[in-house]
């Protein structure tokens, strides 16, 4: 591991479990489904970032690895947006 | 051999002239570019053949002055291409985005290997008992916009009217539309333009364009 200050894995784990439980409880929040969906996917994104940056050591990797991790997500986003007119709006 | 546009079936629709004009514009530009580039290559092949004692020029093309020789024609290519799109946008809008008010509306449904044609009948509504059904034949009056409501029962087919420059895929689960306004009476072939299985080859119908009075007589006959 290049970085000497390895992340505290157990602390990260605690956060992950907390966020998972929070997502489960999101259903009880007032404000109906849109709030629940927002909270649930926000929690998922944070969990994914925690795993990627700390457990997958992305924080310590050079830009090439960041590109290999990030570019596919952008390309998928392009595809998803372009699918909207036909699949979602269904003219 | 080189006059490509002469091979197009004679246009018989109002929108067709615009599409032919666009094809002619693109044809002229691309032919010019072909002559220029192939000519330049031909010139180089003759002029710069290897001759003993004469060395090639050491030109790397890294200096801006050298690259300009290439960037200028590229800019021209970009400009002409964008011009084609500028000329093409209204043609596309009229053909695919605008829906002219048409008093003749016909339902055409593709199925494995025929075109089912349904006329609404005098009450103007589909699904009523005065509808009339035909197979592989559409009758329309000349000089009047006609709207086709397109659907498919099984796989993707594609309604293609070469003489009227009309093509629109029909997709099961999606009600799509297209329109045309025929100018010349006659019988025009209607091939299916999307691979739809065993019977794709030979899956075709006929569009019969009648002069208005002859169409009126046909309507009376069908619904008398």
């Amino acid at each position, binding site marked *: 591991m290049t970085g000497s200050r390895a992340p505290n894995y157990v602390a990260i784990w605690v956060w992950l479990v907390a966020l998972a439980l929070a997502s489960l409880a999101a259903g009880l929040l007032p404000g109906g489904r849109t709030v629940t969906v927002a909270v649930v996917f926000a929690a998922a994104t944070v969990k994914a970032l925690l795993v990627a940056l700390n457990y997958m050591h992305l924080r310590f990797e050079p830009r090439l690895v960041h590109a290999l991790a990030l*570019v596919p997500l952008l*390309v998928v986003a392009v*595809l998803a947006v*372009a*699918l909207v*007119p*036909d*699949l979602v709006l269904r003219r | 051999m080189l006059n490509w*546009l002469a091979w*197009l079936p004679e246009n018989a629709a109002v929108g067709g002239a*615009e*599409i032919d004009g*666009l094809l002619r514009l693109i044809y002229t530009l691309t032919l010019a570019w*072909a002559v220029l580039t192939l000519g330049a*290559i031909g010139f180089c*092949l003759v002029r*710069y*053949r*290897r*001759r003993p004692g004469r*060395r*090639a*020029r*050491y*030109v*790397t*093309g*890294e200096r801006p002055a050298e690259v300009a*020789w290439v960037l200028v024609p590229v800019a021209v*290519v970009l400009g002409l*291409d*964008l011009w*084609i*799109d500028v000329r*093409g946008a209204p*043609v*596309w809008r009229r053909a*695919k985005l605008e829906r002219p008010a048409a008093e003749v509306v016909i339902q055409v449904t593709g199925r494995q290997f025929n075109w089912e044609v349904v006329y609404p009948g005098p009450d103007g509504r589909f699904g009523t008992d005065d509808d009339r059904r035909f197979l592989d034949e559409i009758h329309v009056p000349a000089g009047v916009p006609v709207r086709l409501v397109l659907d498919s029962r*099984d*796989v*993707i087919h*594609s309604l*293609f009217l*070469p003489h009227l*420059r009309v093509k*629109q*895929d*029909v*997709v*099961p*689960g*999606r009600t*799509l539309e297209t329109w045309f306004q025929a100018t010349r009476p006659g019988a025009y072939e209607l091939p299916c*333009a*999307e*691979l739809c299985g*065993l019977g*794709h080859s*030979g899956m*075709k119908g006929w569009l019969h364009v009648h002069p208005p009075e002859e169409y009126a007589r046909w309507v009376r006959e069908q619904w008398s």
Partner: protein
Amino acid sequence: MGQGAVVVTTARAHGPAQSWVSRVFSTDHKTIGKQYLALGVFWAVVGGLLAGAMRWQLAWPDGRVPGLGEIGPDTYNMLVTMHGTIMVFFVAMPILLGAFGNFLIPLMIGARDMAFPRLNMLSVWTFALASLVLLASFFVPGGAASAGWTAYPPLSARPDYSGVEWGLNLWILALALEFASFLMGGVNYLTTAMALRAPGMTFFRLPMLVWQQLTAATLFLLSVGPLIAGAVMLLLDRTLGTGFYAPELGGDPLLWQHLFWFFGHPEVYVIFLPALGIVLEILPVFSRKPLFAYRWIVWATVTAGALSFVVWAHHMFQSGMDPRLAMPFSVTTILISVPFAFIVFCMIATLWGGALRFDPPMLWALGFLTMFIVGGLTGIFNGSAPADIYLRNTYFVVAHFHYTLFSAVVFGGFAGLYFWFPKMFGRLLPARLGTLHFWLTLVAFNVTFFPMHHLGLAGMVRRIANPLQYDLLVPYQWVNVVATLGALGLLGAQVAFVAAVVQALITGRRAPANPWEANTLEWAAPSPPLHLNWGARVPIVHRGPYEYSRPDQPTDWLPQHAAAAPAGR
């Protein structure tokens, strides 16, 4: 940068005295390249014969196709589907990416082998397995796939619609294996080109072919995923009755078209760029002149690669897609023609002021250049949405993609074969036979495909087995006959190539290390290169690959590894 004396563990390294096992199951990138070449050539013969049968049927619809007898429309659909699938996935990819990429990248960057030799071997054997599965799909009950190489659902999503059950299931499996194989190859190209370059081989001293292969591998990596997802969904629709593409179950047939063409368009660049790389390597050697604007071409290639992800819907203008999407995709399609126009003009600028020699590799490279210009220009017709209203799914489109893809695979591929045959097999190909092969192929190619523009404009629709069923095509049946004669001539012309290879391997003169006096590193190795390429020490690189006709040099070439000259860039 790569360490000078890095040597690579090869599980079963083979030297002079080697059993056939270690030769077949070799992890040597040169052997793997030749294995890809052999598989690609096998499939080229099969694909070519299928095309011959199609053309025979189109010219004489009521006649008997030699070898197949009377063929019905279902058989014809199978021929169309398998011809397209084989030529794109089992001829173009293995030869242009697998053979040339594997053989040349390590040699051109001064490495001893790929970064992952075992993974490289796994990739060629996965491709061999894919070939077996595709071959098997011809002999299963119901015959091979017949829903087009694009396999649009619902036709492909329900066995009863196309009448083919196991043939199409195996077709999907074969493609999945082929994708896996080229993903494994792609990672090898990238890591090798970054990690194992010889000392002094900076990125901007890499030969252009390496840049093109890397871009192609990256395009493939980023574009194939969604189609794999689509293929999983299609296989589930066909076998478990799921409803991804079945409107009555809530699915949507257009979803497949988007996923397919999102992959499909980058895919045609994955095929085209390696061929372009070959020709960009050959033009400077036979013009004895530097490649014009090397760095600009690198950036143009990368730009075209990026743009290739936002043009796919020009395949779907009339497919029922939202018509408001058509104009943006028309514009992006126009934009992507700009970097390729730039590269074409740079190729012409390379010829200008050169000292041109017309050996077979140069002839094929010029064939590629001229035929691609025609193909690229007809692309402008199809890129304009309103023009596509008429041209979609007509033979005009068939003519277009043969002038682009066929010119890439055949003219680019033969240019590479004639150029590197001495290096690969240690023998010189006879120049006269090579030249004859070129002119026969060029003429037959144009006789076959140029008239298809006219057939398309006349309204001939794609994938029909019998043009005489259409009254508007009956007067043009003679054009179909001409195209068929051209196609038969095209098949016949390849006999000249077989003769050239046989003569070279049996009686041909042994090839020197550098028969063409070229600068790139692979010509510094013996022909054919020894195992691990470079003997004791890896070459040291002092300059770029295209230092031809430098005024301050006695000879008109200056190899990258030659030390004597004043330090170039």
